[in-house]
């Protein structure tokens, strides 16, 4: 009976959260007062890196003042593309140094990666719709675009991320407390052909793994498969800032020494943890993924915010 209860409570809670997401708009997620940092596309890429690090952000919308239009999002994927381009063309240091943000499209073409599709949505559309659109895009974030009522010009109102939405749910949906089934039973953990590396793997191989596997982090394990650390896509910003990207013989362990001291650490959990506890952690901390380990600490899989959101939106 108890098991039946947990199943029923979980299903009702998920349905209630979906109803909540349909009853709110993306505009509701916005704080009453907030900052939005936008970069002019004629800015140099290396200057934009200073701006992101100075403001402690990892992404920003771009504004093309020539066309007076929103020109997509700058994300860590762009910096990864620049590193890969430089790695394949070490003689092009000058070009990389003088690269402007509106030149990033050429870099994508040069290394043959698909441009990040920047779907966008109107702030007044239901939050559920924004979540569905965001899941279709690889960047894990979705710009909210409106139009100036006089000039019909685009306004970048804000950029919603999976983290912001899950935090909004964790803060406003009391039903998250009824998500008591173990995550191992929900079939939402990514544990098939999991990519990993070890501390001595060259950082350029890890960066290429991020792109080729289309993931935003690569777990680092020791020779016995125990999880030791994680290399995240956003770590690339520190690599470039330090100018050490041209020493790409660097191991991923050495590259991780660039991490600033306010990095909160890698969150781990086990298959027995409940989504209610996971959501509680998202409510309290800046956590972007949970690495699933066994009792001894061996890597078993990863639970990303995208996996959680997908379960809440579409899970059975």
């Amino acid at each position, binding site marked *: 009976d108890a098991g039946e209860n947990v199943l029923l409570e979980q299903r009702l809670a998920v349905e209630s959260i979906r109803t909540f997401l349909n009853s709110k708009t993306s505009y509701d997620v916005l704080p009453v007062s907030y900052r939005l940092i936008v970069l002019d596309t004629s800015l140099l890429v290396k200057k934009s890196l200073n701006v992101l690090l100075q403001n402690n952000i990892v992404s920003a919308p771009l504004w093309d003042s*020539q066309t007076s239009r929103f020109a997509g999002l700058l994300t860590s994927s762009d910096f990864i593309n620049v590193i890969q381009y430089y790695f394949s063309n070490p003689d092009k240091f000058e070009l990389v140094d003088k690269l402007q943000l509106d030149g990033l499209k050429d870099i994508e073409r040069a290394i043959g990666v698909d441009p990040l599709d920047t779907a966008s949505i109107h702030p007044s559309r239901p939050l559920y719709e924004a979540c569905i659109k965001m899941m279709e895009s690889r960047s894990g974030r979705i710009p909210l675009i409106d*139009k*100036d*009522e*006089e000039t019909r010009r685009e306004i970048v109102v804000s950029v919603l991320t999976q983290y912001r939405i899950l935090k909004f749910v964790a803060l406003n949906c009391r039903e998250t407390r009824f998500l008591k089934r173990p995550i191992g039973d929900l079939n939402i953990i990514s544990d098939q052909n999991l990519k990993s590396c070890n501390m001595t793997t060259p950082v350029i191989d890890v960066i290429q793994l991020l792109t080729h596997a289309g993931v935003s982090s690569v777990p680092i394990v020791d020779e016995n498969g125990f999880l030791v*650390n994680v290399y995240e896509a956003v770590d690339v910003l520190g690599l470039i800032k*330090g100018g050490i990207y041209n020493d790409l013989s660097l191991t991923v362990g050495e590259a991780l020494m660039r991490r600033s001291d306010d990095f909160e650490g890698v969150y781990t959990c086990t298959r027995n943890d409940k989504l209610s506890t996971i959501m509680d952690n998202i409510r309290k901390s800046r956590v972007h993924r949970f690495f699933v380990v066994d009792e001894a600490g061996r890597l078993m899989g990863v639970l990303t915010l995208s996996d959680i959101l997908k379960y809440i939106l579409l899970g059975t």
Partner: protein
Amino acid sequence: STISILPTSLPQIHRANMLAQGLPAASKISPLVNKKSKTKWHFGIRSRSYPLDVMGEIYIALKNLGAEWARPSEEDLWTIRVRWKYDNGSINNNNGNMTMISNNSNNINSTNTMTSSNDAIPDLMKMVIQLFQIETNNYLVDFKFDGWENSNGQVVTNSNISEDEMSTFSAYPFLHLTTRLIMELAVNS
């Protein structure tokens, strides 16, 4: 709950482990200092130049950028009412320069794009630039957005727009033009 933070992933512990292995490169790599240098904001731009010189520089910059302005009234020499043709590049000027505007408005090549509701998109941005004295020898140039106009003289009508709609205003054209003006002033000075 068995949710926890992996100790070996904490930067200080990771660094100690790496140094303990005595790898040469490890000792050379310092952690990123995420200095939260709080951006210091100012209203407008400050100047210690002689007030009339400041005004002169602003008029020269406006002229270089192809803006136009109303003749200042005798009693208020320190306020400039500016009008800028803001052609977003998709219309006809690709280098983003402000199109020169002759004084009589009917010479302006009205390159308005028409919105679906067939009223022209206003393409003349108005701005008020005002010089304030903060204290002796310390002045402030203030920039204020002052609405849009149509270069073909049509009055911008905010027709049946609800109160809510009234506040969907894009600051980017205004911010863009002020950066152009500030650059012009910085370069000239």
